[in-house]
Every structure is written in structure tokens, then in C-alpha cells.
């Protein structure tokens, strides 16, 4: 069924994320060079390349949660920067929220995105406005919840989340960083988008694209 959010979708989501991250590698490095240590693109590319390796060699995960759990564990052990424990925790909490569901309904999707956001907040203790990836995930979770409540389809929920994440990432530009390495820069962190917020938008946009690419 086109657009059904099942294990195949989760696998497509992760493959599409890996592809997009590889394409955006240099751009993410440049963002991190401005207010960090110039490795966010490398960190994530390494992490998602490892994810691809696992998907190609290990037994195919049987549920969306199993896909996300495998991603979580792989990112945690390969990324090397803050994004490792942060996205690792996000995907792990997302996986847990799904239980053994084989297909994800709109409401469950909103819950999953909120769980991911909660995991990032639990791990990094950042608040909205601190100029971190939380500034992408918080509007994404809110938009997903609203969309689901208003009766949107799963694909529509994803689209709302991705759009909100992108807007959130763009909106980090004028902020002063208060968490992570960029906070060392104080006011000099103004004028640059947060790399983790931008990669978060990429990840959610990949989820949308993967939903659109469903086999008929």
C-alpha cells in the first residue's frame, strides 16, 4: 500500500537518511566549523554508513522498532560526537514507543517523534531556544501531535513534522548557543544555523521522502 508506514518504510527512511547525509556531509561540516569543531557531517556520515553496512549484512529487522533500535545502537557506537548519544537515545526511545507494531498509525507516529525529542532532551538537557537539535525536534513533535489530532494521515503527520523541523532549524540562526560546544562561542554563535538542528531536519525530510516512495 502506497505510503504505509511499515518496516519497509523504516528501512527506506534510514537508507534515504544515509544518502542525504552523505550528500550534505560537507555542508554540515561547514556549519559545524562556524560554531563547533567541524565534524558533524563526518560524524553522521560515518554513523549512517555503518547503519547501511548493518542493514546490508545482518538479518532484516522484523518491525519498524527493530529498524530504529539497530540504528540507535549503531549511531551510539560509531558517531563519536555529541550526535551519537543524542540521536542514539532519540532512535532508541522512538523504537521503544512503537512496541511491536508492524504498521504505524498517525497518532503513534506523533508519539514516536515526541519520544525521540524527549530522548534528546533527557540526554542533553537543552531547552528550546538553546540553539541545538531540540529546536528542530520540539516544533516537529508539536506539529506532528497537532496534525495527528486533526486527523491527518501518517504521511501528512511526517510532512508536518519535517516542515516544522526545517523551520526550527532555520530559526536557530539568530540564537545564542547555550548547550554543547557552540556555547563556548557565546554571542559569536549568532548568525549560523545549528548543525544538529539542520541534520535533524534532513532526517525528518528523509522520512517524508521514504513515505512517498512506497511500493504500490
Amino acid at each position, binding site marked *: 500500500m502506497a505510503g504505509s508506514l511499515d518496516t519497509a518504510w523504516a528501512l527506506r527512511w534510514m537508507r534515504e537518511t544515509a544518502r542525504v547525509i552523505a550528500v550534505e556531509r560537507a555542508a554540515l561540516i561547514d556549519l559545524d566549523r562556524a560554531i563547533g569543531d567541524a*565534524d558533524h557531517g563526518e560524524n553522521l556520515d*560515518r554513523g549512517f554508513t555503518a547503519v547501511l553496512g548493518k542493514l546490508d549484512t545482518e538479518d532484516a529487522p522484523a518491525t519498524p522498532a527493530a529498524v530504529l533500535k539497530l540504528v540507535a545502537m549503531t549511531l551510539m*557506537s*560509531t558517531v563519536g*560526537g555529541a550526535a*551519537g*548519544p*543524542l540521536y*542514539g537515545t532519540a532512535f532508541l526511545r522512538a523504537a521503544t514507543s512503537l512496541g511491536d507494531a508492524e504498521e504505524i498509525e498517525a497518532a503513534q507516529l506523533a508519539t514516536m517523534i515526541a519520544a525521540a525529542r524527549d530522548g534528546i532532551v533527557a540526554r542533553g538537557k537543552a531547552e528550546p531556544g538553546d540553539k541545538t537539535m531540540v529546536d528542530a525536534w520540539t516544533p516537529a513533535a508539536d506539529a506532528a501531535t497537532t496534525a495527528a489530532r486533526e486527523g491527518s494521515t501518517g504521511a501528512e503527520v511526517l510532512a508536518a513534522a519535517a516542515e516544522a523541523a526545517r523551520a526550527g532549524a532555520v530559526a536557530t540562526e539568530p540564537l545564542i548557543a547555550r548547550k554543547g*560546544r557552540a556555547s563556548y562561542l557565546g554571542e559569536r554563535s549568532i548568525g549560523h544555523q545549528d548543525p544538529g538542528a539542520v541534520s535533524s531536519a534532513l532526517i525528518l525530510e528523509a522520512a517524508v521522502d521514504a513515505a512517498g516512495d512506497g511500493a504500490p
Partner: protein
Amino acid sequence: MSVGLVIVSHSEKIAVGVVELAAQMAPDVVIVAAGGTDDGDGVRIGTSFERVRAGIEEAMGDDGVVVLTDLGSAVMTAETVLEFLEPEVRAAVRLAEAAIVEGAVAAAVQSQGGAPLEEVLRAAEGAVVSL
């Protein structure tokens, strides 16, 4: 036995150097370096879940382990590892909010002297900078 230490730094060199420095005054304490990444093709600057996990395992004796970190992402990596530990192991691990070099030396000396876990932690966190 004595309280073990794990030194989690973004730089493998810092972690190994802290171990050699702290070991001078604490020859009987197990101090494990968990520095840099470990992703198959060489060590980059960063932290490694697996190195921290293995470090805690190696440093764990009857008296527990204090983990010292350098920057914020090292703290997050260490906290993530802690969440995966068995509850009884987790209960014997403390994450120090300490200057990594100065805290490690102070903690190592306390551990060498047979101090219990909370005291070793306190020594790390209270380490006077450049004593």
C-alpha cells in the same frame, strides 16, 4: 582492592597521558584510558561508547568505579553507557563533575589510600586546580 577510574577524553593521547600521570601516585589503582573514537579505521577525536563500556568493565572491582570526562559530549557518551549497565553494576559507578586531569590525580591518590567510592568521587570533584 580499590576504586577504579575510567578516563573519558575526546583525545586518546589525553586519556593515556592522564592514566600515566595518575598512576605515578597510585600504582595499585586500576585506571583505564577511554579516549578517542574507535570505529575500525583509526582513532579520531571524539568519544566511543564501546571504549567507555569496556573501560568501566575493566576498572570495576569490588569497590566501584569513578568515571571522569572532558567535554560535554564525553559526558553524554558516558551517561548513555551507564543506562545500559545492569542495575547492580550501575549502582557502583559514579560520573564525576571534575577537571579531568586534576580530578583524576586527586581521585587516584584517594583510591590508592583505600578510600570508598563516594570519597574518591568527592576528591575528583573537589580537586584544586594546579595544586
